[in-house]
């Protein structure tokens, strides 16, 4: 009775495992292969606890595979211009829950091992763990937590505000550039600079404010990064503004700077000269020691070795 029971169970598991696989074209072949291998193993009469996943665990694993596939697709698609946090936040969160399920889930078998053990720690490679930690690290590095609302979807208010302003300034650039194109002077961006100055300044100030707030919020004071979306948006805008449009031309007042600095550099010369000329040189009063010999005999010592 018992072997039959186990056979049935295995078949059931196999059916479950194959079920979702049939829906995915790409994975189909591999799953098929696995199924064939499992069938062969069974035919060879190997003991029942052969390395096959329980159906529940199989389901969890498949869910994770799907989740990670979509998330990595999202990340890659949103790599340039960087919109990771806005676009892939939901996906990341769901992947986190999936991973959590795997780590927590206990298989329905009466035996001691559970899904976490069989999926996460039973081989050297530990692909699931590696994948999960890759996503975690990427998320950490992007610092997305900084611009997404705590435990809910959507951007935080300040980030939303920043993004709106960013879109506004981009629109402004675009609008004015179209105007420029008719002027037939592609290198002259004065229009853009003049018209979009207000928006750009506002954007810049907001960014600086966010940065300052962030730095204050952070106790230790180090690595105070905003989230990558905001940073990248600002970077693009700044590059456009100062490199492409060449709008931020600071007033270079070289003449006064040279005048003031040479004045300051000149002061020590005056000081040293005047103290050399006017200050009384400090004299030391020599005192002749009382010795049997006179100093002259020492001349001998000196000459002897010269």
């Amino acid at each position, binding site marked *: 009775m018992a072997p039959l029971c186990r056979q049935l169970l295995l078949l059931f598991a196999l059916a479950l495992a194959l079920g979702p696989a049939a829906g995915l074209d790409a994975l189909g072949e591999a799953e098929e292969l696995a199924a064939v291998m499992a069938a062969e193993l069974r035919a060879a009469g190997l003991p029942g606890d052969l390395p096959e996943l329980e159906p529940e665990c199989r389901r969890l694993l498949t869910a994770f595979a799907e989740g990670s596939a979509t998330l990595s697709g999202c990340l890659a698609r949103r790599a340039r211009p960087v919109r990771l946090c806005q676009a892939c936040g939901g996906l990341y969160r769901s992947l986190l829950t999936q991973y959590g399920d795997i780590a927590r889930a206990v298989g329905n078998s009466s035996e001691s091992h559970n899904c976490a053990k069989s999926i996460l720690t039973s081989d050297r490679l530990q692909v699931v763990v590696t994948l999960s930690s890759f996503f975690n690290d990427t998320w950490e590095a992007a610092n997305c937590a900084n611009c997404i609302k705590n435990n809910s979807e959507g951007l935080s208010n300040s980030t939303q505000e920043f993004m709106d302003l960013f879109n506004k300034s981009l629109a402004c650039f675009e609008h004015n550039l179209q105007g420029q194109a008719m002027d037939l002077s592609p290198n002259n961006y004065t229009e853009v600079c003049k018209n979009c100055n207000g928006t750009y300044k506002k954007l810049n100030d907001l960014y600086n404010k966010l940065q300052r707030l962030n730095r204050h919020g952070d106790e230790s004071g180090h690595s105070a990064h905003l989230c990558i979306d905001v940073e990248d948006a600002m970077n693009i805008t*700044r*590059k456009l503004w100062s490199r492409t449009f060449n709008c931020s031309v600071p007033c270079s007042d070289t003449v006064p700077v040279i005048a*003031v600095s040479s004045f300051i550099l000149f002061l020590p010369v005056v000081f040293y000269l005047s103290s050399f000329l006017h200050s009384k040189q400090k004299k030391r009063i020599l005192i002749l*020691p009382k010795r049997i*010999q006179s100093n002259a*005999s020492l001349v001998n010592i000196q*000459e002897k070795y010269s």
Partner: protein
Amino acid sequence: MANVAKKVSWSGRDPRDDEDERAGETTPLLNGTGPGSAGGARQFTPSSFLRPGQLSNVDLNEDIRELETELPRPYPNEIPHNEKLLSLKYESLDYDNSENQLFLEEERRINHAAFRTVEIKRWVICAMIGILTGLVACFIDIVVENLAGLKYRVVKDNIDKFTEKGGLSFSLLLWATLNASVVMVGSVIVAFIEPVAAGSGIPQIKCYLNGVKIPHVVRLKTLVIKVCGVILSVVGGLAVGKEGPMIHSGAVIAAGISQGRSTSLKRDFKIFEYFRRDTEKRDFVSAGAAAGVSAAFGAPVGGVLFSLEEGASFWNQFLTWRIFFASMISTFTLNSVLSVYHGNAWDLSSPGLINFGRFDSEKMGYTIQEIPIFIFMGVVGGILGALFNALNYWLTMFRIRYIHRPCLQVIEAMLVAAVTAAVGFVMIYCSRDCQPIQGSSVAYPLQLFCADGEYNSMATAFFNTPEKSVVNLFHDPPGSYNPMTLGMFTLMYFFLACWTYGLTVSAGVFIPSLLIGAAWGRLFGISLSYLSKGSIWADPGKYALMGAAAQLGGIVRMTLSLTVIMMEATGNVTYGFPIMLVLMTAKIVGDYFVEGLYDMHIQLQSVPFLHWEAPVTSHSLTAREVMSTPVTCLRRIERVGTVVDILSDTSSNHNGFPVVESNPNTTQVAGLRGLILRSQLIVLLKHKVFVERANLNLVQRRLKLKDFRDAYPRFPPIQSIHVSQDERECMIDLSEFMNPSPYTVPREASLPRVFKLFRALGLRHLVVVNNHNEVVGMVTRKDLARYRLGKEGLEELSLAQT
């Protein structure tokens, strides 16, 4: 007199040399016939014996001037300051214990258990030294960080504002004025309140450990001025560090705690009275210096070795162990307090004021092929260090001669501060080296003319405290600085640092040296990777570290302790070997040109500093030629009036007097019986320990050793002790107070022999006797320190009043 004759035959004079001939003519009596008979007879006539005023170092006396008639120059003579002088204002410490009757009595009285308590007290004191030194270091660090942060923020906001609107010259003025005014305060307190707090303090502590008593060097007032001064000069943006002064601070703390009282505060806590003498105090001071090094660099072992290297003549394993304990406690205290301050309590990962940061073995490892390159860097460091020292020598000489008034010194410091700001500003202004701001850890990024989102790379070097700049140079990823920036920075900072050292502000030279070295080292690394097409020489940070070590070694010429300090500061033992090679090379190359910065300053201060050995070519000199004579002696039972007259003779400042047999017939020379110190005599006079009073039972109690300790270390001057006319006729019995077994040498002992005895035992007075145990002369520190190996062989320094 054999050796004297030999000396003449060795001399090998060139007969064509006129100068030499003349010199020879003037000295036949002294070198030819030998002074044993003639000179000796003249010296020991009764008229010149036992006469106040005939004191060994000072000559204002007619008799002696007659002796020196062959010299054409009249004395006293005024000359401009030079390095071949010994100043009279420095005294020796009494490291030698005076084993008089009182001492023996006390030792009998204190039982074994009491000595054990003394031993425990020593450990307690060392722990307290460590803790307090660590706390002082924390205080300096935190205050500097906040004040400097405030200053840089103000200036940065100002620059940012004026970059848009124009008028950057105002920012320059603001920066220069801020710097100058902060430095002015720092300089005023040093120049007017405690001039000994100027500089790094390492030369002074080196002298103290050598056995020279530098006035005021270990006072509480000095500590306060030192700490405030160093904060102000770092905040004032001078090219200085706060590490050197930590060593001085540690030493002052040690001296203060071990005495259990402060004379500056006029408080006596009545504890640790046993340690109130030079011997004990000096041991604790070496522990304090070690604790200071350890707090400054996070290098406890380096601190111990620093004490060993600088003051090792009196050393034993128990003392070493105690010093190590103090060092460890100090770095631990700093560590824990700073970890609490930075919000990650008990992390214990910031062990020193300067933390070189983590050097990963994998990323910054080195291969055997790089060793010759490191050695080459050592050579460069030696040459640059020698250049630094030579320039600083001329500057210091000029300062001593012409800028000696406090107001001038303050003005000079202010000017240097303003110029430092101006140079920094102009460099930043002219630099076009922009780096993206993202991902870099710049504390105060200055944009100036860079595109938005970028910062000026020159500003990370100039617009920052030097400590931070050093760490940036070590650890910023390759490509953070372009070679032009580094080159200009090295050049400018070299001259600024050289100009700054020796100002009347309290500040160290460690960090500026490291910074210069790190800059050119990084430049070197970048050019290497450029030459080798970027193959194996990946990380310029490694070369920055070696450059820093080479430059520092080239300037200060420390060896063992510096290697260990650098090793501990990087936290990477594998760097020990290349750092050692670099420091060794730098020292050898540097010593070929000029001596180390600290030794140079000691010499310029005319301190009678005793090196490890006597000059190598001095064996032909004997005690007879070295010693001062005639000696002012006291009889064992002496008239009070005579003692008072001798002590109050303003032309002399003698501190030790041989005590001879009291023979009523003074025409006869008497044998040596002991040695008594000025401080003891003063205490005796103060307590009126006269024979007559004792006979009349006027003395309430017998004098104890405690009475001598209570007066230590500032014995009242003789003028403050009133002795009436009647009392002058009393007699004073010195026999139970004098040291009955002073060290003596015969007249024929050679200079190296005398020197060895003197140096190894830490003596202050060494009596020269003849065959009949009669006093013929006295050797003191100044008599030995005046012989020095100069460029042309052995030379003699002159004594001078400074």
